[in-house]
């Protein structure tokens, strides 16, 4: 590429930058205006054209490659035209639109070369770019070509071609090389300067160019498609990640669309294939817009509607009214929308200082000039054999975005792990705290239970054994003249021992076990009843559990019954005592009925008052009646249904 070409190239790049920013209007304008400039630059003046048939032959050096960029052109012939035909002399690269606007069909290019001697080594003709397919003739002999030269024409337009020339074809002196180019469906038909020289040298150039334009593009496309598929699968498993889904779809479509460059023999008919790849490219760009908006976290319904509308409008326009202007306008709008959404994404990344946002910036920084470059190339502002950049930059951009999104995923996973760890630690800590607090509570409860038990036992000793022992002491110290009443003292001491035994029994009574209480009372009191000659009738039925019968309450009941028995023994003069227990009207009725003298006192004695006091503490009632045998019947009525009664811990 010479200096002026390079200058044109870079001028085009800068112009493209501005164009891509100006978008639609710029595209539309550029479609026409620069075309004239290029035309005037490439085509020879009419005066030069006059000399076409006399264009000098190029002398080929034996050991090197020669670039042939001057040719005579003739349109419309199937067979190779002769030297006398109306050739048009021009400089390559040649675009048909420059000299034959709107022409489709066959175009012959004629080159005159001179061999100072017939080459010994195998030679070749190298066609860097012939749109769409081409066949080389040397001295009127057709060479082999790839694919098809008639409809459908093999799409070799982006594929370099190397044609080997058999040794016998060359002759010493003048040789004619003719290149037959056939046009294809909606393509920029034309021919870039061809090269002729030893096969060994051209082969290297050809291979390198094939790698860059074909093989590597295939590879990049497959990679892009796979990456997109990966992202789409990820999105399918996590439907909330719309950004990833759109980006994945865009990548897949981009891969499909770009394949059009290198698919010389597409599986689909040309018309269908062209449309499919066109739609894929358009949709890929529009999906990228959606990605940028989701990525930024903004969502405008009208923007979505615009994008979806363009998705439908672009292919429809292409199919129904393939107008260049309309197409340019549509592309302009699409590029504008894409640029705006990209700008929003870049702004958001910079403003929020997003983690890994640099990758997006890097991708955009490469993508935008590349896209501009390719656009300018499509507008014919760049050399005819320019290489497209997007097939490579596209995957790079997608890779950047994917790298960034994968970073998000990795961070969220790490964050989750941290949270889990913290949670586990917290749970363990809470568990320990809870256990400690339970232990404290249990200890406190134990201490309280011990304290309550101690209080109970102390009160028991005070009321029972202590009281009786004190009485016995007072009786022994009696100042009365009659002296000490040994019988009375013995009785008091026996009472105190009995109280002690009852107290021991109360310790092992189950809560609410009134039958057990009565049984143990009988067992303890039997020797005294026997000694007093009092017959005991046992009329205790099976009783339900007394709900309020906690240990202190049972002890109070023992006191009441013991006091009642003592009264019978001491005052009644009875010979027969019935101890009854049954359920009446939902209450426990425990009764002592004797056949003694009956109630004789004027008022209630001190003993009875004490019994009533104790009964009130445990929610019981004491009823005095006349027994069927004529004596006194003492009923202790215990409620079976729970009711509030004075807390024993505060009751004396």
């Amino acid at each position: 590429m010479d200096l002026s070409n390079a200058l044109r190239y870079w001028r085009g790049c800068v112009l493209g930058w501005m164009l891509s920013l100006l978008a639609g209007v710029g595209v539309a304008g550029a479609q026409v205006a620069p075309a004239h400039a290029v035309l005037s630059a490439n085509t020879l003046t009419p005066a030069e054209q006059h000399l076409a048939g006399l264009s000098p032959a190029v002398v080929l050096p034996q050991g090197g490659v020669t670039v042939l960029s001057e040719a005579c052109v003739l349109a419309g012939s199937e067979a190779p035209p002769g030297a006398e035909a109306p050739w048009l002399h021009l400089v390559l690269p040649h675009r048909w639109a420059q000299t034959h606007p709107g022409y489709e069909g066959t175009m012959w290019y004629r080159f005159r070369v001179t061999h100072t001697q017939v080459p010994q080594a195998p030679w070749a003709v190298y066609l860097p770019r012939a749109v769409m397919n081409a066949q080389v003739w040397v001295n009127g002999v057709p060479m082999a070509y790839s694919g098809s030269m008639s409809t459908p024409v093999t799409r070799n337009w982006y594929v370099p071609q190397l044609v080997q020339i058999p040794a016998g074809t060359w002759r010493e002196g003048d040789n004619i090389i003719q290149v037959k180019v056939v046009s294809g469906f909606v393509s920029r038909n034309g021919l870039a300067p061809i090269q002729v020289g030893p096969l060994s040298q051209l082969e290297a150039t050809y291979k390198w160019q094939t790698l860059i334009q074909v093989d590597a593009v295939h590879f990049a496309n497959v990679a892009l498609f796979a990456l997109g598929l990966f992202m789409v699968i990820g999105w399918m498993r996590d439907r909330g990640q719309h950004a990833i889904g759109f980006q994945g779809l865009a990548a897949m479509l981009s891969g499909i669309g770009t394949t059009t460059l290198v698919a010389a023999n597409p599986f689909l008919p040309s018309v269908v294939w062209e449309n499919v790849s066109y739609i894929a490219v358009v949709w890929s760009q529009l999906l990228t817009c959606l990605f940028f908006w989701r990525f930024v976290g903004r969502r405008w319904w009208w923007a979505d509607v615009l994008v979806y509308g363009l998705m439908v409008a672009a292919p429809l326009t292409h199919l129904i009214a393939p107008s260049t202007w309309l197409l340019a306008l549509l592309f302009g709008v699409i590029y504008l929308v894409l640029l705006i959404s990209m700008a929003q994404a870049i702004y958001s990344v910079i403003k929020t200082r997003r983690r890994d946002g640099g990758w997006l910036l890097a991708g955009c920084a490469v993508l935008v000039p590349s896209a501009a470059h390719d656009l300018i190339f499509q507008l014919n502002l760049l050399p005819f054999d320019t290489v497209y950049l997007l097939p490579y930059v596209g995957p790079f951009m997608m890779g950047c975005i994917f790298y960034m999104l994968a970073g998000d995923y990795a961070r969220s996973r790490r964050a989750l792990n941290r949270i889990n760890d913290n949670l586990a630690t917290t749970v363990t800590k809470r568990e320990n705290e809870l256990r400690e607090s339970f232990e404290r509570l249990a200890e406190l409860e134990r201490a309280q239970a011990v304290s309550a038990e101690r209080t109970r036992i102390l009160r028991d000793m005070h009321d029972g054994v202590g009281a009786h022992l004190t009485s016995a002491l007072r009786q022994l110290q009696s100042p009365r003249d009659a002296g000490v009443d040994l019988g009375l003292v013995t009785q008091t001491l026996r009472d105190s021992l009995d109280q002690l035994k009852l107290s021991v029994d109360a310790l092992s009574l189950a809560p609410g076990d009134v039958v057990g209480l009565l049984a143990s009372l009988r067992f303890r009191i039997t020797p005294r009843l026997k000694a007093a000659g009092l017959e005991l009738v046992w009329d205790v039925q099976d009783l339900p559990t007394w709900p309020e019968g906690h240990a202190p309450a049972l002890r109070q009941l023992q006191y009441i019954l013991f006091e009642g028995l003592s009264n019978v023994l001491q005052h009644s003069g009875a010979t027969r005592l019935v101890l009854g227990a049954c359920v009446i009207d939902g209450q426990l009725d425990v009764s002592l009925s004797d056949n003694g003298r009956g109630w004789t006192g004027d008022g209630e004695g001190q003993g009875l008052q004490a019994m009533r006091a104790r009964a009130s503490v445990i929610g019981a009632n004491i009823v005095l009646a006349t027994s069927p045998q004529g004596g006194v019947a003492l009923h202790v009525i215990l409620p079976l249904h729970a009711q509030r009664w004075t807390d024993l811990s505060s009751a004396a």
Partner: protein
Amino acid sequence: MSAVKQDVWRVVLVEDNQANRSFLETCVAGHPQLQLAASFGTLAPARAWFAEHESDLLLVDLGLPDGTGLDLMRDVRQRWPACDMLVVSMFGDEENVLASIEAGAVGYVHKDDEAADIADTLLAVKRGASPISPMIARHLLRRMQPLAHRTGEAPVAASPVAVLPASTQGTEDKAESTSETIVLSRREQEVLEFIARGFSYAEIARQQGITVHTVQTYIKKLYGKLAVHSRSEAVYEANRLGLLDTFGSKIR
């Protein structure tokens, strides 16, 4: 052993309280059918004595200056199975009484009992009776029910009940065959329940249509089962803990 012998029973006393010992000695001496063989205030001389002498009755206090009466009872039961042992208890509380029964005692007397009552109790034991309080009966009922349920041997416990003719006096129960759980015959269970509810032996006998003596026999047998059970339970526990590797399988 239901026949009342007219022999004089030899009695050994072990009681550290001097006054109490004198009182008990008086009790024994005051009855023509009882004869005081020996009287000790501590454990060691009593054990030495029993190594060489036999006795018909042993009355022992649990809390002795050089040990517990339970040890002496275990020795004596091994050496002289025919010797009936009673414990001198302050309260007749279930903890002490049950420990004594498991050590082989067949009864107990209260320290504050009248002298005549103590002598009567000693002779009654020799005639095959055993005293029991409602509290102890309750405890035994509580303890046996879960055992039968837990080991799934309720059917074993129930089978002797099923074959027992209700009219017989129930002396033929074979429930002792199982050593790991205390298996009660239905009669024993009923008697225990009556006692737990406060009925006297006489009332139970009347209600069940059996003699008072039979009721008393039930209790004494029950005590025997408890003692056997406590022994096998100890062996079972030792076996379970791996202390008796060699004999474990034979014993089970």
